[in-house]
């Protein structure tokens, strides 16, 4: 309402300053006002998109217009289902069966006889096995450490980069392309290449380290370092992911709010921590959420770098699941493990959310 009223008087300026190139901009100047309302009348007659809109105005035949109109009327009346429908359809088609399948498998033990699957109910024994599964517990702990460390570091770096790049005056697009190069590489290549870089005898990392006069570092072979080395790779690989999500969000922030803060006396620090970060909260949450899920699913890199070793120092849940479900072909217990991983992910995310809210409140 308000905006519309505002536009009646100063429309074009309003849009100029709020950098919104929207159809309303037309309403500003008197001359164009007529065009705008013409256009909006075309909308009212039933044009769902600009292209249709143009089609409409150029369409000679009123019959054609009516036909188009009734289709779009229908579209508009049931817009909810037209917008959400395709997604629901896709999910029904491709996710329901796999999920039900996993759930059923989790309660069974499955083996093969004469080329046929034989299912047996084995929920209790599977659960008992899970209860006593030490490796899974170790893997869960490692995954949690891995997820906390990598997600926190990546969020901090990604946010910093997003804000820095958005503060640049030019070459933003170039920087965005440059900074997302790591996620373009296939994970299998990332694992192999970093393994080469970490190589104790020949790797570039140790070339640098010894070049600086230190002893070569046993990046992947030492139990205390292996997890850290793997986290470094993860940070390198996935910081661009966070950067990309947050950069888009920073670019979408209302400029004037930040300008107002600058006039109010905010320093860079204040603007970042009191304005930008709170405003980015939705995007930050989404980035953290999906990064966490990805961290719980991490596989290729660790598989190629350490295979979970040495000992169990880099054993993570997905690696263990691979062993059980895939290598050892324990379909039932493996399915239960994947449910356990999902549960763990959810619990982990909820805890993270709690911690975040708690620190915010204090």
């Amino acid at each position, binding site marked *: 309402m308000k905006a519309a009223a505002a536009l009646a008087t100063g429309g074009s300026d309003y849009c100029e300053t709020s950098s919104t190139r929207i159809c309303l901009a037309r309403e500003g100047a008197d001359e164009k006002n007529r065009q705008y309302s013409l256009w909006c009348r075309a909308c009212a007659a039933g044009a769902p998109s600009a292209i249709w809109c143009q089609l409409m105005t150029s369409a000679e035949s009123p019959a054609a217009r009516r036909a188009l109109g009734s289709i779009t009327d229908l579209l508009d009346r049931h817009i909810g289902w037209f917008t*959400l429908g395709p997604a629901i359809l896709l999910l029904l088609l491709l996710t329901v069966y796999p999920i039900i399948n996993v759930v059923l498998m989790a309660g069974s033990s499955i083996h093969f006889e004469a080329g046929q699957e034989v299912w047996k109910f084995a929920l209790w024994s599977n659960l008992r096995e899970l209860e006593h599964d030490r490796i899974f517990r170790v893997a869960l702990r490692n995954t949690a450490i891995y997820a906390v460390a990598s997600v926190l570091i990546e969020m901090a*770096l990604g946010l910093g980069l997003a804000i820095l790049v958005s503060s640049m005056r030019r070459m933003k697009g170039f920087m965005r392309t440059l900074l997302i190069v790591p996620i373009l590489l296939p994970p299998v*290549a990332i694992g192999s290449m970093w393994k080469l870089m970490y190589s104790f005898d020949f790797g570039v990392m140790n070339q640098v380290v010894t070049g600086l006069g230190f002893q070569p570092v046993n990046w992947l072979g030492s139990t205390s370092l292996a997890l850290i080395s793997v986290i470094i790779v993860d940070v390198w690989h996935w910081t661009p992911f966070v950067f990309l*999500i947050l950069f888009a969000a920073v670019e979408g*922030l209302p400029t004037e709010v930040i300008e107002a803060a600058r006039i109010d006396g905010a320093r860079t620090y204040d603007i970042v921590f009191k304005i930008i970060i709170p405003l980015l909260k939705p995007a930050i949450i989404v980035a953290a959420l999906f990064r966490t899920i990805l961290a719980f699913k991490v596989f290729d890199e660790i598989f190629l770098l350490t295979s979970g070793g040495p000992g169990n120092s880099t054993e993570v849940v997905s690696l263990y699941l691979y062993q059980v479900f895939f290598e050892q072909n324990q379909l039932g217990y493996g399915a239960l493990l994947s449910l356990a991983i999902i549960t763990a992910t959810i619990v982990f995310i909820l805890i993270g959310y709690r911690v975040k809210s708690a620190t915010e409140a204090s």
Partner: protein
Amino acid sequence: MLVLRGYSRLIGIFLLTLSAFIIVAPFLWVALQSFKYEIQILQGTWFTEPTLHNYVDVLWSQRSDFLKNVLNSMIVAGVSTICVLVVGTLAAYSLARLRWKRWIAAGFLAWTLVFNMIPPLTLVGPWFLIFREIGLLQSLFALVLTHITLNLPMTVWMMMAYFNELPRDIEEAAMVDGCRRIDAFWRVSLPLVAPGLIAAGVLAFVFSWNEFAVALNLTSRATATVPVAIAQFSQQYEVQNGQMAAASVLSTIPALLLMFFGQKFIIQGLTMGAVK
């Protein structure tokens, strides 16, 4: 956004250059390896006479279908990205702006999230069955469908965050002025979330481009994608680092190009919707 001046600007530029270097250096290193013979890579030699041997092998050896793999990947990633942007953005808009019953919205979002958490290992078996039953096995179409589904959760959640950042009243004003919901969406909201749309598009593209587990299972040699091809260089006994580096470099180039033009396409499409 942030305006840096004086010292802080210098520090900012320095930090940015440093991080750009750290991020790009390993990639450059990989690119460097692609011009070396395997033994030079293994020995960590820095300066050697460059050879195109790895590229020749990746592209034209008898075993290789690399160009075909790239083409497959371009089709799969391109089509699935466009589709997931359409489906996902509509769904996100729907959830962010229309009045849905709580349980529908929450149920939908929770379901996508849980689905996103499922280890892909447990998905491929059932999918293999589904597509075999409907006779789409080893077709690119099946792969496109699965990639849309795989990337849908992230797209929906991201786009929802961006839509929620938009003030509602701009859109409401448009509707008061006679725009339909769908016009308000197309001409008002969508152009405003263009940066988000690009981010979501880039991510969906990248994830599809690099997706391995499903692509491996649902394709045959004729429909295999780039990651499947690249994985062949990581063998049971050794990694063919030179070829893998060359293949990685080769696979990023079309991805970068496609992303670049994709961005242009999105921006153009949106400005057409918004201004013309």
